[in-house]
């Protein structure tokens, strides 16, 4: 049963299994285990980014395609939902049609970019997506009549999902089950379903062919697989899932803006998460996103403290200042591409073998 | 037979997941023309490319003029005195004929006497000296490829199918040129599928199949022995005669 749920792709390492279980259980009971708004915010972010990063892994790890447009698709989903909520009112119907519209637009964009640039070379795709995504971000921030520009959009969500709504008055483990908790469980459940679906996709015949194409596109083509078709389909799938992750973010934050969805920083975060977690493993997305977001939320504070502690030393204190944590992540990123191309998951699996 | 110039001992070459050369033993004596025959996919081109260092042998030993070159990189192998005319000719079509030749003369200057000799050997090289190499016909490109290989005196020239796809008249002049080249001190290792051409200028011959050398000996012997020809090359030659 469990094996079927995971599409036969088990973690294959005791340590990895344990880590994943801890993450799963913590996220499943986050509202009760971790009191405080900040922890719940972090948990929801982790859920959303697991999906976002896993959908990117479908592209990078399984299809061997580097895209810089993943945040664009993420943003399209978020803006779709945001615009629906602000135009047709805070109802669940708005969320559904907004997410569906966002996913559809993302799919069409992905299809166009894929058919257009995947024919030539993977490297071409990377460059084209970088250019298109940047232009899209600029366009969104300039079309302020629609998107609110740099300020983004604030909107209402269905009352059932806001803190004002109480499911029942009793508290469970000292936590009142309000709309925010329901909202969290919406995010958690959809994220879990999307992740399991992605796991199914990569373990399906389609996923296997995708890997064959990645390893030797020439040969796959010769055997008769239409390489462009497989790559484009993967691009579209990954874009749709990213858009749905964006919708979740839009619902959770009740705010959508360029900085939370479209920025290049987020794109780089996704890259870091997928590579450090482990490309082409899906579970790497879980570990990568969790560790990265925890570090982002809590480690930066530590670095800041360490930096001010040695503020007398000029350059060194700058090097470990809180804002410089990307520097060390960058170094870690390069080292992991060289030495641990399969990331944490690959390491853990190897340790067992 | 004189002393060996080039020796391959048990050479294996892998290209990606494919095991192409499976223990090639080949001796190219100094002087004259050695011919490497075999059907498509037998490993002839891979043998030349492995000698040139364009593929690295995974096992075995290659020595040239008594010196081991198995692990050297391509530029060093070239500088040790081996020139290479690849199957696709490797012409720089973006450059002129003159520029192609300039690059082939390793230290820049071309010996005028040698150049005159080449232009006599292959008149189109002189005629189209300042034309873009991309505009040459297939036969002219092949002449340029061979000219590039001989603009500097080299001990050994590896030539991969110089007559492939050429008209009979051009094949004849190419054969004549190679015969003249033989008169100089240069040794030639020629990969060929055209047996008529190969037998007319070859001194020794080796036949490859499935990544192995299946026969090696004098060309005259092979030409005389029709049975042997049929046994060894029934597969490889009839289709190309």
């Amino acid at each position, binding site marked *: 049963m469990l094996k079927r749920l995971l599409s036969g792709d088990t973690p294959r390492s005791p340590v990895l299994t344990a880590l994943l279980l801890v993450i799963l259980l913590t996220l499943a009971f986050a509202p009760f285990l971790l009191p405080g708004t900040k922890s719940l915010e972090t948990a929801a972010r982790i859920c959303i980014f697991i999906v976002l990063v896993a959908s990117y892994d479908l592209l990078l790890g399984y299809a061997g395609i580097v895209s810089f447009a993943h945040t664009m698709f993420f943003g399209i989903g978020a803006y779709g939902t945001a615009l629906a909520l602000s135009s047709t009112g805070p109802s669940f119907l708005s969320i559904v049609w907004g997410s569906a519209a966002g996913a559809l637009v993302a799919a069409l964009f992905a299809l166009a970019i894929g058919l257009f640039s995947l024919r030539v070379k993977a490297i071409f795709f990377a460059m084209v997506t970088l250019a298109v995504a940047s232009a899209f971000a600029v366009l969104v921030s300039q079309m302020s009549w629609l998107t609110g520009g740099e300020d983004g959009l604030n909107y209402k969500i269905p009352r059932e999902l806001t803190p004002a709504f109480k499911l029942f008055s009793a508290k469970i483990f000292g936590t009142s089950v309000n709309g925010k908790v329901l909202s969290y469980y919406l995010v958690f459940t959809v994220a879990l379903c999307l992740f399991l679906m992605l796991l199914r996709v990569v373990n399906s015949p389609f996923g296997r062919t995708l890997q064959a194409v990645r390893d030797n596109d020439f040969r796959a083509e010769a055997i008769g697989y239409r390489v462009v078709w497989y790559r484009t389909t993967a691009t579209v799938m990954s874009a749709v899932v990213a858009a749905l992750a964006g919708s979740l973010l839009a619902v959770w934050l009740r705010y959508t803006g360029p900085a939370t969805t479209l920025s290049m920083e987020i794109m780089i975060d996704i890259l870091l998460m997928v590579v450090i977690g482990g490309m082409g493993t899906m579970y790497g997305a879980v570990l990568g996103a969790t560790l990265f977001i925890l570090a982002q939320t809590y480690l930066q504070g530590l670095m800041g403290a360490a930096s001010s502690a040695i503020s007398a030393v000029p350059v060194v204190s700058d090097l470990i200042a809180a804002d410089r944590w990307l520097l060390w992540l960058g170094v870690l*990123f390069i080292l992991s591409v060289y030495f641990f191309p399969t990331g944490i998951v690959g390491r853990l699996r190897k340790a067992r073998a | 037979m004189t002393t060996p110039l080039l020796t391959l001992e048990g050479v294996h070459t892998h290209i990606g997941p494919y095991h192409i050369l499976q223990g090639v033993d080949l001796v190219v004596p100094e002087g004259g023309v050695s011919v490497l025959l075999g059907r498509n996919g037998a490993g002839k081109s891979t043998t030349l490319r492995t000698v040139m260092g364009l593929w690295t042998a995974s096992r075995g030993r290659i020595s040239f003029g008594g010196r081991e070159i198995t692990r050297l*990189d391509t530029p060093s192998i070239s500088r040790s005195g081996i020139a290479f005319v690849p199957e696709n000719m490797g012409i720089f079509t973006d450059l002129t004929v003159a520029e192609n030749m300039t690059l082939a003369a390793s230290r820049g200057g071309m010996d005028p006497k040698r150049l005159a000799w080449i232009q006599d050997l292959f008149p189109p090289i002189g005629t189209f000296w300042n034309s873009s190499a991309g505009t040459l016909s297939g036969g002219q490109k092949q002449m340029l490829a061979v000219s590039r290989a001989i603009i500097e005196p080299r001990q050994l020239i590896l030539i991969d199918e110089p007559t492939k796809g050429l008209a009979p008249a051009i094949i004849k002049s190419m054969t004549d040129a190679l015969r003249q080249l033989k008169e100089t001190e240069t040794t030639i290792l020629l990969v060929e599928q055209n047996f008529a051409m190969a037998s007319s200028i070859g001194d020794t011959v080796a036949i490859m199949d499935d990544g192995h050398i299946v026969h090696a000996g004098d060309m005259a012997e092979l030409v005389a022995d029709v049975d042997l020809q049929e046994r060894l090359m029934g597969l490889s030659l009839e289709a190309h005669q």
Partner: protein
Amino acid sequence: MSGSAIKPRIEKVSLSDRLADKAPLLLVPALALAGLLAIGNPSTWLTLTVAGVAMGLMVFIMASGLTVVFGLMDVINFGHGAFVSVGAFVGFSILIWLGGWASAPSVFLNLAAVLVAILVAMTVTGLMGYAFERVIVMPVYGQHLKQILVTMGGLIVAQQLIYVFWGPDAIHVARPQSLQGSILLGNAAIEKYRLVAVGIGLVLFLVMRHILRSTRIGLLVRAGVENSEMVEALGYRVKRLFLLVFMAGSALAGLGGVMWGLYQETITAHMGSDIMVLVFIVVIIGGLGSVEGCFIGALLVGLLSNYTAFLEPKVALVSTIGLMVVILMWRPQGLYPVVKAK
């Protein structure tokens, strides 16, 4: 041997083929003409055209190294923008240091300050290119996926190092005295600095063209772009050549960074990655590996950006994407696809 056996002949190039070969060249004047029709006012058009050419040439300077590096070794450096930013910061530091020269009312001292800034910036970025090639690029030759990831990582690290050394804020430096202001050409006001940028850009293009066409190194680079294996078989070390080209490309990116910084008068650590969007579009339009294509692509992008910025400011960047799409529909490999003999 009988010479008569070989009939000398040059394959006739048909008229339409020759026209197709020249067609990309006609795009630039065609676009300029279209701009004139759309804008209407000739002096506005002239101002915008000069601005467009200046911008195009600056982008060309930054893009040329990238495209040759790709042509030669199939390496695309997503961290190329780091050299632009570093070049700008080093150059600006020198200009601040030489503040006396830059603000003196002497054209000679002004230009000397800029020249010193450029030379130092190019030296630093050239050396940085050496380190980048050895440490970041060399271990991943031939592996595109890792290359993109690792060079991107290099970009992150370089940007962060700029923050460490120069602080997180944008730096503002006014152009030297004599490069400020405009001159009037009829009714058209043309910024002096743009003319200088056009001058430097054109000189550089001609020098680069000369090097590629008439020097041995240039011949080797062109030959290597087409068939690097054959260049090795002729006895040349392509990797050494590549390192040289990589360093030159990095130095040019540094030069571009200084010039772009002086153009904007403000520099930030991420200016390089911002401008890379245009650089990539230019390289794609021109055809990966082609210097001529890159030159034409850069002019097209520069002109189009300035025209649309005037006509409909919001779509300036999107219009260049549109240009890229149109060109790729016409020629899927870019204006001048580089033929790889492999």
